[in-house]
Protein backbone atom coordinates (compact mmCIF):
# COMPACT_ATOMS: atom_id res chain seq x y z
CA UNK A 1 0.00 0.00 0.00
CA UNK A 2 2.60 2.58 0.97
CA UNK A 3 4.71 1.20 -1.85
CA UNK A 4 2.03 1.98 -4.42
CA UNK A 5 1.64 5.45 -2.96
CA UNK A 6 5.36 6.19 -3.13
CA UNK A 7 5.59 5.04 -6.71
CA UNK A 8 2.46 6.98 -7.62
CA UNK A 9 3.86 10.13 -6.06
CA UNK A 10 7.21 9.73 -7.75
CA UNK A 11 5.64 8.90 -11.07
CA UNK A 12 3.45 11.99 -10.96
CA UNK A 13 6.45 14.10 -9.97
CA UNK A 14 7.23 15.45 -13.43
CA UNK A 15 3.63 16.63 -13.83
CA UNK A 16 3.91 18.63 -10.63
CA UNK A 17 7.40 19.87 -11.01
CA UNK A 18 9.24 19.21 -14.20
CA UNK A 19 12.83 19.44 -13.00
CA UNK A 20 13.97 15.93 -13.82
CA UNK A 21 17.44 16.43 -12.40
CA UNK A 22 15.87 17.28 -9.07
CA UNK A 23 13.45 14.37 -9.20
CA UNK A 24 16.15 11.92 -10.24
CA UNK A 25 18.40 13.15 -7.45
CA UNK A 26 15.49 12.76 -5.07
CA UNK A 27 15.06 9.15 -6.18
CA UNK A 28 18.81 8.62 -5.77
CA UNK A 29 18.69 9.97 -2.25
CA UNK A 30 15.75 7.69 -1.47
CA UNK A 31 17.91 4.75 -2.51
CA UNK A 32 20.78 6.01 -0.36
CA UNK A 33 18.53 6.67 2.63
CA UNK A 34 17.15 3.14 2.28
CA UNK A 35 20.69 1.82 2.13
CA UNK A 36 21.45 3.60 5.39
CA UNK A 37 18.21 2.18 6.74
CA UNK A 38 19.29 -1.36 5.94
CA UNK A 39 22.65 -1.10 7.61
CA UNK A 40 21.90 1.37 10.41
CA UNK A 41 18.22 0.78 11.00
CA UNK A 42 18.39 -2.98 10.87
CA UNK A 43 21.82 -3.63 12.37
CA UNK A 44 22.63 -0.50 14.37
CA UNK A 45 25.89 0.16 12.50
CA UNK A 46 26.18 3.78 11.41
CA UNK A 47 27.99 3.90 8.06
CA UNK A 48 29.36 7.42 8.17
CA UNK A 49 31.44 6.70 5.11
CA UNK A 50 28.50 5.31 3.16
CA UNK A 51 29.38 7.71 0.37
CA UNK A 52 32.32 5.39 -0.37
CA UNK A 53 29.88 2.85 -1.82
CA UNK A 54 28.12 5.58 -3.76
CA UNK A 55 31.49 6.65 -5.20
CA UNK A 56 32.42 3.05 -5.94
CA UNK A 57 29.15 2.65 -7.85
CA UNK A 58 29.74 5.86 -9.75
CA UNK A 59 33.26 4.92 -10.77
CA UNK A 60 32.45 1.27 -11.38
CA UNK A 61 29.72 2.18 -13.83
CA UNK A 62 31.56 5.14 -15.38
CA UNK A 63 34.76 3.23 -16.01
CA UNK A 64 32.79 0.35 -17.50
CA UNK A 65 31.04 2.79 -19.82
CA UNK A 66 34.32 4.47 -20.73
CA UNK A 67 36.51 1.43 -21.26
CA UNK A 68 34.08 -1.32 -22.22
CA UNK A 69 31.37 0.84 -23.78
CA UNK A 70 28.69 -1.07 -21.91
CA UNK A 71 25.05 -0.03 -22.09
CA UNK A 72 23.15 1.79 -19.39
CA UNK A 73 21.55 -1.24 -17.76
CA UNK A 74 24.82 -3.13 -17.68
CA UNK A 75 26.41 -0.05 -16.15
CA UNK A 76 23.87 -0.09 -13.33
CA UNK A 77 24.63 -3.75 -12.69
CA UNK A 78 28.36 -3.15 -12.78
CA UNK A 79 27.99 -0.15 -10.47
CA UNK A 80 26.21 -2.32 -7.95
CA UNK A 81 28.79 -5.06 -8.41
CA UNK A 82 31.66 -2.64 -7.78
CA UNK A 83 30.02 -1.45 -4.58
CA UNK A 84 29.44 -5.01 -3.45
CA UNK A 85 33.10 -5.79 -4.04
CA UNK A 86 34.04 -2.69 -2.05
CA UNK A 87 31.66 -3.91 0.65
CA UNK A 88 33.33 -7.31 0.73
CA UNK A 89 36.77 -5.73 1.00
CA UNK A 90 35.56 -3.52 3.83
CA UNK A 91 33.58 -6.22 5.62
CA UNK A 92 36.31 -6.63 8.29
CA UNK A 93 35.18 -3.23 9.52
CA UNK A 94 32.04 -4.92 10.82
CA UNK A 95 34.18 -6.28 13.64
CA UNK A 96 34.25 -2.76 15.06
CA UNK A 97 31.47 -1.18 17.02
CA UNK A 98 29.89 2.23 17.56
CA UNK A 99 31.91 5.28 16.66
CA UNK A 100 34.92 3.17 15.69
CA UNK A 101 32.90 1.63 12.91
CA UNK A 102 31.49 4.99 11.85
CA UNK A 103 34.92 6.61 11.71
CA UNK A 104 36.55 3.64 10.05
CA UNK A 105 34.01 3.66 7.22
CA UNK A 106 34.58 7.37 6.88
CA UNK A 107 38.32 6.79 6.61
CA UNK A 108 37.75 4.02 4.08
CA UNK A 109 35.58 6.22 1.89
CA UNK A 110 38.14 8.98 1.91
CA UNK A 111 41.02 6.59 1.25
CA UNK A 112 39.04 5.36 -1.75
CA UNK A 113 38.61 8.96 -2.82
CA UNK A 114 42.35 9.60 -2.74
CA UNK A 115 43.01 6.50 -4.80
CA UNK A 116 40.47 7.54 -7.43
CA UNK A 117 41.64 11.16 -7.37
CA UNK A 118 45.30 10.19 -7.76
CA UNK A 119 45.15 7.67 -10.54
CA UNK A 120 45.05 8.60 -14.18
CA UNK A 121 43.12 5.49 -15.25
CA UNK A 122 40.24 6.74 -13.11
CA UNK A 123 40.54 10.21 -14.70
CA UNK A 124 41.23 11.47 -11.19
CA UNK A 125 42.66 14.81 -12.23
CA UNK A 126 41.08 15.43 -15.59
CA UNK A 127 37.57 14.51 -14.52
CA UNK A 128 35.12 11.94 -15.86
CA UNK A 129 33.09 12.62 -18.97
CA UNK A 130 30.45 10.17 -20.12
CA UNK A 131 28.34 9.91 -23.26
CA UNK A 132 24.59 10.33 -22.93
CA UNK A 133 23.07 6.87 -22.47
CA UNK A 134 19.52 7.69 -21.41
CA UNK A 135 17.34 10.72 -21.95
CA UNK A 136 16.55 12.53 -18.68
CA UNK A 137 13.01 11.17 -18.83
CA UNK A 138 14.15 7.60 -19.35
CA UNK A 139 16.68 7.92 -16.56
CA UNK A 140 14.04 9.22 -14.21
CA UNK A 141 11.73 6.35 -15.12
CA UNK A 142 14.54 3.90 -14.41
CA UNK A 143 15.17 5.62 -11.08
CA UNK A 144 11.53 5.28 -10.09
CA UNK A 145 11.62 1.61 -10.98
CA UNK A 146 14.80 1.25 -8.93
CA UNK A 147 13.08 2.86 -5.95
CA UNK A 148 10.06 0.59 -6.35
CA UNK A 149 12.24 -2.53 -6.54
CA UNK A 150 14.20 -1.35 -3.52
CA UNK A 151 11.07 -0.85 -1.48
CA UNK A 152 9.88 -4.32 -2.43
CA UNK A 153 13.22 -5.78 -1.41
CA UNK A 154 13.13 -3.91 1.89
CA UNK A 155 9.58 -5.06 2.57
CA UNK A 156 10.60 -8.63 1.83
CA UNK A 157 13.65 -8.29 4.03
CA UNK A 158 11.69 -6.78 6.87
CA UNK A 159 9.09 -9.52 6.91
CA UNK A 160 11.49 -12.37 6.29
CA UNK A 161 13.48 -14.49 8.66
CA UNK A 162 16.51 -12.51 7.50
CA UNK A 163 14.86 -9.30 8.70
CA UNK A 164 13.89 -10.92 11.97
CA UNK A 165 17.50 -12.03 12.42
CA UNK A 166 18.73 -8.50 11.77
CA UNK A 167 16.37 -7.10 14.38
CA UNK A 168 17.44 -9.80 16.78
CA UNK A 169 21.11 -8.99 16.25
CA UNK A 170 20.46 -5.34 16.81
CA UNK A 171 18.69 -6.21 20.03
CA UNK A 172 21.34 -8.58 21.36
CA UNK A 173 23.92 -10.28 19.16
CA UNK A 174 24.90 -12.90 21.76
CA UNK A 175 21.36 -14.02 22.34
CA UNK A 176 20.62 -13.95 18.62
CA UNK A 177 23.60 -16.22 17.98
CA UNK A 178 22.29 -18.61 20.62
CA UNK A 179 19.02 -18.68 18.70
CA UNK A 180 21.00 -19.99 15.77
CA UNK A 181 21.51 -16.74 13.88
CA UNK A 182 24.82 -16.52 12.08
CA UNK A 183 25.58 -13.03 13.25
CA UNK A 184 28.59 -12.32 11.05
CA UNK A 185 26.99 -13.61 7.88
CA UNK A 186 23.68 -11.87 8.49
CA UNK A 187 25.34 -8.55 9.20
CA UNK A 188 27.58 -8.91 6.18
CA UNK A 189 24.59 -9.64 3.95
CA UNK A 190 22.84 -6.50 5.19
CA UNK A 191 26.03 -4.56 4.62
CA UNK A 192 26.34 -5.87 1.06
CA UNK A 193 22.67 -5.19 0.32
CA UNK A 194 23.20 -1.66 1.51
CA UNK A 195 26.34 -1.38 -0.62
CA UNK A 196 24.44 -2.62 -3.65
CA UNK A 197 21.76 0.04 -3.19
CA UNK A 198 24.43 2.73 -3.06
CA UNK A 199 26.00 1.21 -6.16
CA UNK A 200 22.76 1.44 -8.10
CA UNK A 201 22.26 4.99 -6.86
CA UNK A 202 25.82 5.78 -7.92
CA UNK A 203 25.36 4.43 -11.42
CA UNK A 204 22.17 6.46 -11.84
CA UNK A 205 23.93 9.56 -10.58
CA UNK A 206 26.86 9.00 -12.93
CA UNK A 207 24.59 8.75 -15.93
CA UNK A 208 22.60 11.79 -14.85
CA UNK A 209 25.62 14.00 -14.18
CA UNK A 210 27.96 12.50 -16.78
CA UNK A 211 30.71 15.12 -16.22
CA UNK A 212 32.21 15.26 -12.74
CA UNK A 213 35.38 15.26 -10.67
CA UNK A 214 36.26 12.76 -7.95
CA UNK A 215 35.50 15.11 -5.08
CA UNK A 216 31.78 15.12 -5.85
CA UNK A 217 31.11 11.36 -5.72
CA UNK A 218 33.04 11.04 -2.46
CA UNK A 219 31.74 14.17 -0.78
CA UNK A 220 30.97 13.30 2.84
CA UNK A 221 27.92 15.52 2.87
CA UNK A 222 26.22 12.90 0.69
CA UNK A 223 26.64 10.39 3.54
CA UNK A 224 25.39 12.90 6.02
CA UNK A 225 22.33 13.78 3.98
CA UNK A 226 21.44 10.13 3.47
CA UNK A 227 21.78 9.51 7.20
CA UNK A 228 19.86 12.61 8.20
CA UNK A 229 17.09 11.92 5.68
CA UNK A 230 16.73 8.35 6.95
CA UNK A 231 16.74 9.42 10.59
CA UNK A 232 14.36 12.27 10.00
CA UNK A 233 11.84 9.96 8.42
CA UNK A 234 12.50 7.17 10.87
CA UNK A 235 14.75 4.19 10.46
CA UNK A 236 13.57 0.59 10.79
CA UNK A 237 10.47 1.49 8.84
CA UNK A 238 10.02 1.20 5.12
CA UNK A 239 8.23 4.46 4.56
CA UNK A 240 10.35 6.56 6.95
CA UNK A 241 13.45 7.10 4.83
CA UNK A 242 11.25 7.84 1.79
CA UNK A 243 9.27 10.46 3.66
CA UNK A 244 12.37 11.92 5.24
CA UNK A 245 14.06 12.28 1.88
CA UNK A 246 11.05 13.78 0.14
CA UNK A 247 10.43 16.34 2.86
CA UNK A 248 14.01 17.32 3.65
CA UNK A 249 15.42 17.24 0.16
CA UNK A 250 12.51 19.28 -1.18
CA UNK A 251 13.10 21.70 1.64
CA UNK A 252 16.77 21.76 0.77
CA UNK A 253 15.99 22.51 -2.86
CA UNK A 254 13.46 25.13 -1.85
CA UNK A 255 15.98 26.81 0.43
CA UNK A 256 18.64 26.61 -2.27
CA UNK A 257 16.33 28.41 -4.65
CA UNK A 258 15.08 31.01 -2.24
CA UNK A 259 18.60 31.87 -1.10
CA UNK A 260 18.36 32.52 2.58
CA UNK A 261 21.49 33.91 4.11
CA UNK A 262 21.57 31.43 6.94
CA UNK A 263 21.12 28.18 5.09
CA UNK A 264 23.92 26.24 6.74
CA UNK A 265 22.94 27.57 10.15
CA UNK A 266 19.35 26.47 9.74
CA UNK A 267 20.35 23.05 8.48
CA UNK A 268 22.80 22.57 11.34
CA UNK A 269 20.26 23.57 13.96
CA UNK A 270 17.69 21.32 12.36
CA UNK A 271 20.01 18.35 12.77
CA UNK A 272 20.72 19.24 16.39
CA UNK A 273 17.03 19.57 17.22
CA UNK A 274 16.24 16.39 15.35
CA UNK A 275 18.68 14.34 17.40
CA UNK A 276 17.56 15.89 20.67
CA UNK A 277 13.82 15.97 20.23
CA UNK A 278 12.88 13.53 17.52
CA UNK A 279 15.39 10.68 17.72
CA UNK A 280 12.87 8.22 16.31
CA UNK A 281 12.09 10.33 13.26
CA UNK A 282 8.80 11.45 11.72
CA UNK A 283 7.24 8.02 11.78
CA UNK A 284 7.75 7.75 15.53
CA UNK A 285 5.49 10.76 15.99
CA UNK A 286 2.56 8.78 14.80
CA UNK A 287 3.63 5.31 15.75
CA UNK A 288 5.34 3.45 13.01
CA UNK A 289 5.39 -0.27 12.80
CA UNK A 290 4.52 -1.38 16.32
CA UNK A 291 6.58 1.36 17.95
CA UNK A 292 5.00 3.54 20.53
CA UNK A 293 4.67 7.14 19.40
CA UNK A 294 7.08 9.62 20.89
CA UNK A 295 4.42 11.46 22.83
CA UNK A 296 3.40 8.24 24.50
CA UNK A 297 6.97 7.68 25.63
CA UNK A 298 6.91 11.15 27.00
CA UNK A 299 3.75 10.43 28.95
CA UNK A 300 5.33 7.27 30.29
CA UNK A 301 8.40 9.16 31.39
CA UNK A 302 6.26 11.71 33.21
CA UNK A 303 4.27 9.02 34.94
CA UNK A 304 7.22 7.01 36.13
CA UNK A 305 9.27 9.30 38.27
CA UNK A 306 11.74 6.58 39.15
CA UNK A 307 12.14 5.19 35.73
CA UNK A 308 10.90 1.68 36.48
CA UNK A 309 8.51 2.02 33.59
CA UNK A 310 11.22 2.78 31.09
CA UNK A 311 10.17 3.38 27.53
CA UNK A 312 11.11 0.48 25.35
CA UNK A 313 14.14 0.49 23.18
CA UNK A 314 16.11 2.12 25.90
CA UNK A 315 17.76 -0.93 27.31
CA UNK A 316 21.42 -0.12 27.60
Amino acid at each position, binding site marked *: MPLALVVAVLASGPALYNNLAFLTTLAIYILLAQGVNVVYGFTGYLPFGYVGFFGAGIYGSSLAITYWHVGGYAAIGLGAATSIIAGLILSPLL*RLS*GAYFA*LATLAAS*QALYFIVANESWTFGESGMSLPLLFSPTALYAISVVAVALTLIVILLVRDSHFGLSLRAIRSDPVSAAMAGVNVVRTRTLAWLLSAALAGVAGALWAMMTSAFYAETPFDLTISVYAIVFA*LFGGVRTVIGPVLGTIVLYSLYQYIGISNPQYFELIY*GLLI*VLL*VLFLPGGLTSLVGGRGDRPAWWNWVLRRRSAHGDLTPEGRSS
Partner: protein
Amino acid sequence: MRLFEYALISGVLYGLFYGFIGVGLNLLFGVMRLVNLAHGDLVVWGGYLAYSLTTSAHVNPLWAIPISIPLALVAGFLLYVLTVPRLRRSPDTETSSLILFFGVSQVLEALATMKYGTNQVTLPELGNPVTIFGQQYAASLVASAALAVPALALFYLYLYRTRLGLATRAVMANEEEATASGVRIRLVATSAFMIGLAFAAAAGPLATFMLGGINPTTGGGLTITAFTIIIIGSLGNPAGTAAGGVLYGLASSLTQAYATAWTGMVPYALLLVVVLVRPSGLFGRRVRVA
Protein backbone atom coordinates in the same frame (compact mmCIF):
# COMPACT_ATOMS: atom_id res chain seq x y z
CA MET B 1 69.79 12.48 3.89
CA ARG B 2 69.28 16.15 4.74
CA LEU B 3 65.71 15.80 3.53
CA PHE B 4 65.17 12.72 5.67
CA GLU B 5 66.49 14.55 8.69
CA TYR B 6 64.25 17.51 7.97
CA ALA B 7 61.23 15.25 7.55
CA LEU B 8 61.97 13.54 10.86
CA ILE B 9 62.38 16.73 12.84
CA SER B 10 59.47 18.58 11.33
CA GLY B 11 57.41 15.40 11.65
CA VAL B 12 58.08 15.29 15.38
CA LEU B 13 57.37 19.00 15.80
CA TYR B 14 54.14 18.77 13.82
CA GLY B 15 53.29 15.61 15.67
CA LEU B 16 53.49 17.25 19.07
CA PHE B 17 51.18 19.96 17.83
CA TYR B 18 48.76 17.30 16.57
CA GLY B 19 48.95 15.67 19.99
CA PHE B 20 47.75 18.98 21.39
CA ILE B 21 44.86 18.94 18.93
CA GLY B 22 43.93 15.44 20.09
CA VAL B 23 43.89 16.09 23.83
CA GLY B 24 40.51 17.76 24.10
CA LEU B 25 38.86 15.20 21.89
CA ASN B 26 40.35 12.43 23.96
CA LEU B 27 38.50 13.72 27.01
CA LEU B 28 35.17 13.94 25.24
CA PHE B 29 35.40 10.71 23.35
CA GLY B 30 37.34 8.76 25.94
CA VAL B 31 35.23 9.75 28.91
CA MET B 32 31.78 10.22 27.58
CA ARG B 33 31.77 8.39 24.27
CA LEU B 34 30.70 11.63 22.67
CA VAL B 35 31.81 11.75 19.07
CA ASN B 36 32.54 15.42 18.84
CA LEU B 37 32.59 16.09 15.13
CA ALA B 38 32.69 19.80 15.93
CA HIS B 39 36.13 19.49 17.51
CA GLY B 40 37.96 20.87 14.50
CA ASP B 41 35.52 23.75 14.24
CA LEU B 42 36.20 24.67 17.84
CA VAL B 43 39.91 24.70 17.05
CA VAL B 44 39.20 26.93 14.07
CA TRP B 45 37.21 29.30 16.27
CA GLY B 46 40.21 29.52 18.58
CA GLY B 47 42.19 30.51 15.51
CA TYR B 48 39.65 33.16 14.53
CA LEU B 49 39.87 34.62 18.00
CA ALA B 50 43.61 35.02 17.53
CA TYR B 51 42.98 36.57 14.13
CA SER B 52 40.55 39.09 15.62
CA LEU B 53 43.05 39.96 18.31
CA THR B 54 45.92 40.57 15.92
CA THR B 55 43.87 42.56 13.44
CA SER B 56 42.09 44.73 16.02
CA ALA B 57 44.59 45.02 18.87
CA HIS B 58 47.82 44.18 17.00
CA VAL B 59 49.08 41.94 19.77
CA ASN B 60 50.92 38.66 19.56
CA PRO B 61 48.41 36.03 18.39
CA LEU B 62 49.44 33.69 21.18
CA TRP B 63 47.57 35.94 23.62
CA ALA B 64 44.48 34.31 22.24
CA ILE B 65 45.36 31.16 24.14
CA PRO B 66 44.80 32.48 27.68
CA ILE B 67 41.80 34.49 26.50
CA SER B 68 40.14 31.60 24.71
CA ILE B 69 40.31 29.23 27.67
CA PRO B 70 37.72 30.92 29.93
CA LEU B 71 35.51 31.57 26.90
CA ALA B 72 35.67 27.93 25.91
CA LEU B 73 34.92 26.82 29.48
CA VAL B 74 31.74 28.87 29.47
CA ALA B 75 30.77 27.76 25.98
CA GLY B 76 31.49 24.17 26.99
CA PHE B 77 29.26 24.44 30.02
CA LEU B 78 26.39 25.87 28.01
CA LEU B 79 26.73 23.32 25.22
CA TYR B 80 26.90 20.55 27.80
CA VAL B 81 23.78 21.62 29.63
CA LEU B 82 21.83 22.11 26.44
CA THR B 83 22.67 18.85 24.75
CA VAL B 84 24.40 16.16 26.73
CA PRO B 85 21.84 15.18 29.39
CA ARG B 86 19.23 14.67 26.67
CA LEU B 87 21.69 12.93 24.44
CA ARG B 88 22.66 10.44 27.12
CA ARG B 89 19.08 9.28 27.33
CA SER B 90 19.26 8.10 23.74
CA PRO B 91 19.53 4.33 23.25
CA ASP B 92 22.72 4.79 21.28
CA THR B 93 24.51 7.82 22.67
CA GLU B 94 27.61 7.31 20.61
CA THR B 95 25.84 7.35 17.26
CA SER B 96 23.39 10.06 18.22
CA SER B 97 26.21 12.28 19.43
CA LEU B 98 28.00 11.85 16.15
CA ILE B 99 25.02 13.19 14.26
CA LEU B 100 24.29 15.90 16.80
CA PHE B 101 27.81 17.24 16.75
CA PHE B 102 27.80 17.19 12.99
CA GLY B 103 24.92 19.64 13.30
CA VAL B 104 26.89 21.70 15.81
CA SER B 105 29.81 21.74 13.42
CA GLN B 106 27.57 23.05 10.63
CA VAL B 107 26.36 25.80 12.92
CA LEU B 108 29.88 26.78 13.92
CA GLU B 109 30.94 26.84 10.26
CA ALA B 110 27.96 28.98 9.36
CA LEU B 111 28.68 31.43 12.15
CA ALA B 112 32.33 31.62 11.10
CA THR B 113 31.29 32.32 7.51
CA MET B 114 28.97 35.07 8.66
CA LYS B 115 31.57 36.72 10.85
CA TYR B 116 34.80 36.16 8.93
CA GLY B 117 33.74 35.41 5.38
CA THR B 118 34.98 32.52 3.31
CA ASN B 119 38.48 33.79 2.56
CA GLN B 120 41.49 32.11 4.06
CA VAL B 121 42.89 34.10 7.00
CA THR B 122 46.43 33.85 8.31
CA LEU B 123 48.35 35.11 11.33
CA PRO B 124 51.63 37.03 11.23
CA GLU B 125 54.63 34.74 11.72
CA LEU B 126 55.96 34.73 15.28
CA GLY B 127 59.57 35.49 14.45
CA ASN B 128 62.65 34.44 12.56
CA PRO B 129 63.08 30.81 11.65
CA VAL B 130 64.76 28.56 14.19
CA THR B 131 67.87 26.68 13.11
CA ILE B 132 68.10 23.05 14.18
CA PHE B 133 71.11 21.05 12.96
CA GLY B 134 71.73 23.66 10.31
CA GLN B 135 68.25 23.60 8.78
CA GLN B 136 65.57 26.20 9.26
CA TYR B 137 62.19 25.57 10.82
CA ALA B 138 59.36 28.09 11.09
CA ALA B 139 59.24 29.84 14.46
CA SER B 140 55.55 29.02 14.72
CA LEU B 141 56.25 25.34 14.21
CA VAL B 142 58.79 25.26 17.01
CA ALA B 143 56.52 27.35 19.25
CA SER B 144 53.60 25.03 18.60
CA ALA B 145 55.60 22.00 19.60
CA ALA B 146 56.97 23.84 22.62
CA LEU B 147 53.46 24.76 23.77
CA ALA B 148 52.10 21.30 23.08
CA VAL B 149 54.46 19.71 25.57
CA PRO B 150 53.17 21.62 28.63
CA ALA B 151 49.60 21.17 27.37
CA LEU B 152 50.07 17.41 27.23
CA ALA B 153 51.74 17.54 30.64
CA LEU B 154 48.75 19.43 32.06
CA PHE B 155 46.44 16.82 30.65
CA TYR B 156 48.55 14.16 32.33
CA LEU B 157 48.52 16.00 35.66
CA TYR B 158 44.78 16.45 35.44
CA LEU B 159 44.16 12.77 34.87
CA TYR B 160 46.72 11.36 37.26
CA ARG B 161 47.26 13.93 39.97
CA THR B 162 43.82 15.33 40.74
CA ARG B 163 40.78 13.79 42.40
CA LEU B 164 38.65 14.79 39.46
CA GLY B 165 41.15 13.11 37.18
CA LEU B 166 40.99 9.92 39.19
CA ALA B 167 37.22 10.00 38.93
CA THR B 168 37.53 10.69 35.21
CA ARG B 169 39.70 7.65 34.71
CA ALA B 170 37.26 5.57 36.71
CA VAL B 171 34.43 6.66 34.42
CA MET B 172 36.54 5.89 31.36
CA ALA B 173 37.27 2.40 32.66
CA ASN B 174 33.73 1.52 33.60
CA GLU B 175 30.96 4.00 34.01
CA GLU B 176 28.61 1.70 35.93
CA GLU B 177 31.24 0.63 38.41
CA ALA B 178 32.31 4.21 38.88
CA THR B 179 28.74 5.30 39.59
CA ALA B 180 28.30 2.45 42.01
CA SER B 181 31.40 3.50 43.92
CA GLY B 182 30.12 7.02 44.35
CA VAL B 183 31.75 8.92 41.52
CA ARG B 184 29.69 11.94 40.57
CA ILE B 185 29.31 11.26 36.90
CA ARG B 186 27.73 14.61 36.15
CA LEU B 187 30.60 16.53 37.65
CA VAL B 188 33.16 14.40 35.86
CA ALA B 189 31.33 14.65 32.56
CA THR B 190 30.72 18.38 32.78
CA SER B 191 34.31 19.15 33.64
CA ALA B 192 35.66 16.79 31.00
CA PHE B 193 33.43 18.49 28.45
CA MET B 194 34.48 21.99 29.47
CA ILE B 195 38.17 21.15 29.68
CA GLY B 196 38.04 19.32 26.39
CA LEU B 197 36.61 22.37 24.66
CA ALA B 198 39.16 24.63 26.33
CA PHE B 199 42.01 22.50 24.99
CA ALA B 200 40.48 22.62 21.52
CA ALA B 201 40.12 26.39 21.49
CA ALA B 202 43.61 26.88 22.94
CA ALA B 203 45.09 24.92 20.06
CA GLY B 204 43.41 27.25 17.56
CA PRO B 205 46.07 29.92 17.11
CA LEU B 206 48.71 27.25 16.59
CA ALA B 207 46.52 25.46 14.07
CA THR B 208 46.26 28.66 12.07
CA PHE B 209 50.03 28.61 11.63
CA MET B 210 50.33 24.91 11.09
CA LEU B 211 47.63 24.74 8.45
CA GLY B 212 48.86 27.74 6.51
CA GLY B 213 45.72 29.67 7.45
CA ILE B 214 42.14 28.81 8.27
CA ASN B 215 38.74 29.24 6.70
CA PRO B 216 35.30 28.14 7.85
CA THR B 217 35.66 24.72 6.23
CA THR B 218 39.05 23.90 7.75
CA GLY B 219 37.53 22.21 10.80
CA GLY B 220 36.23 19.07 9.12
CA GLY B 221 39.59 17.66 8.09
CA LEU B 222 41.10 18.62 11.41
CA THR B 223 38.45 16.64 13.27
CA ILE B 224 39.27 13.48 11.35
CA THR B 225 42.97 13.95 11.96
CA ALA B 226 42.30 14.41 15.67
CA PHE B 227 40.24 11.22 15.81
CA THR B 228 42.98 9.35 14.01
CA ILE B 229 45.50 10.51 16.55
CA ILE B 230 43.56 9.60 19.66
CA ILE B 231 42.57 6.23 18.26
CA ILE B 232 46.19 5.48 17.30
CA GLY B 233 47.33 6.59 20.72
CA SER B 234 44.56 4.81 22.67
CA LEU B 235 41.76 6.54 24.51
CA GLY B 236 42.46 8.17 27.84
CA ASN B 237 46.20 7.94 27.53
CA PRO B 238 48.02 11.31 27.38
CA ALA B 239 51.36 9.78 26.45
CA GLY B 240 49.55 7.76 23.81
CA THR B 241 47.95 10.89 22.37
CA ALA B 242 51.37 12.53 22.14
CA ALA B 243 52.82 9.41 20.55
CA GLY B 244 49.84 9.13 18.19
CA GLY B 245 50.40 12.73 17.16
CA VAL B 246 54.08 12.17 16.54
CA LEU B 247 53.42 9.01 14.57
CA TYR B 248 50.93 10.90 12.44
CA GLY B 249 53.31 13.85 12.03
CA LEU B 250 56.13 11.58 10.93
CA ALA B 251 53.94 9.64 8.51
CA SER B 252 52.72 12.91 7.06
CA SER B 253 56.13 14.52 6.63
CA LEU B 254 57.73 11.37 5.26
CA THR B 255 55.00 11.03 2.64
CA GLN B 256 55.50 14.70 1.79
CA ALA B 257 59.15 13.94 1.19
CA TYR B 258 58.89 10.64 -0.63
CA ALA B 259 55.32 10.04 -1.84
CA THR B 260 53.95 13.53 -2.21
CA ALA B 261 50.80 12.62 -4.07
CA TRP B 262 49.59 10.41 -1.22
CA THR B 263 49.87 12.86 1.69
CA GLY B 264 46.13 13.36 1.80
CA MET B 265 45.58 9.68 2.41
CA VAL B 266 47.85 9.43 5.46
CA PRO B 267 45.34 10.01 8.25
CA TYR B 268 42.76 7.75 6.68
CA ALA B 269 45.13 4.92 5.92
CA LEU B 270 46.63 5.10 9.42
CA LEU B 271 43.21 5.09 11.02
CA LEU B 272 42.10 2.07 9.01
CA VAL B 273 45.22 0.09 9.74
CA VAL B 274 45.08 0.84 13.44
CA VAL B 275 41.40 0.05 13.97
CA LEU B 276 41.66 -3.18 12.03
CA VAL B 277 44.93 -4.45 13.43
CA ARG B 278 44.74 -3.13 16.94
CA PRO B 279 41.44 -1.43 17.76
CA SER B 280 42.61 -0.65 21.27
CA GLY B 281 45.25 1.67 19.84
CA LEU B 282 48.96 1.22 20.07
CA PHE B 283 49.22 2.17 23.71
CA GLY B 284 46.11 0.81 25.34
CA ARG B 285 44.60 -2.38 26.58
CA ARG B 286 40.93 -1.59 26.22
CA VAL B 287 39.53 -3.61 23.41
CA ARG B 288 36.44 -2.35 21.68
CA VAL B 289 35.24 -5.01 19.35
CA ALA B 290 31.64 -5.90 18.80
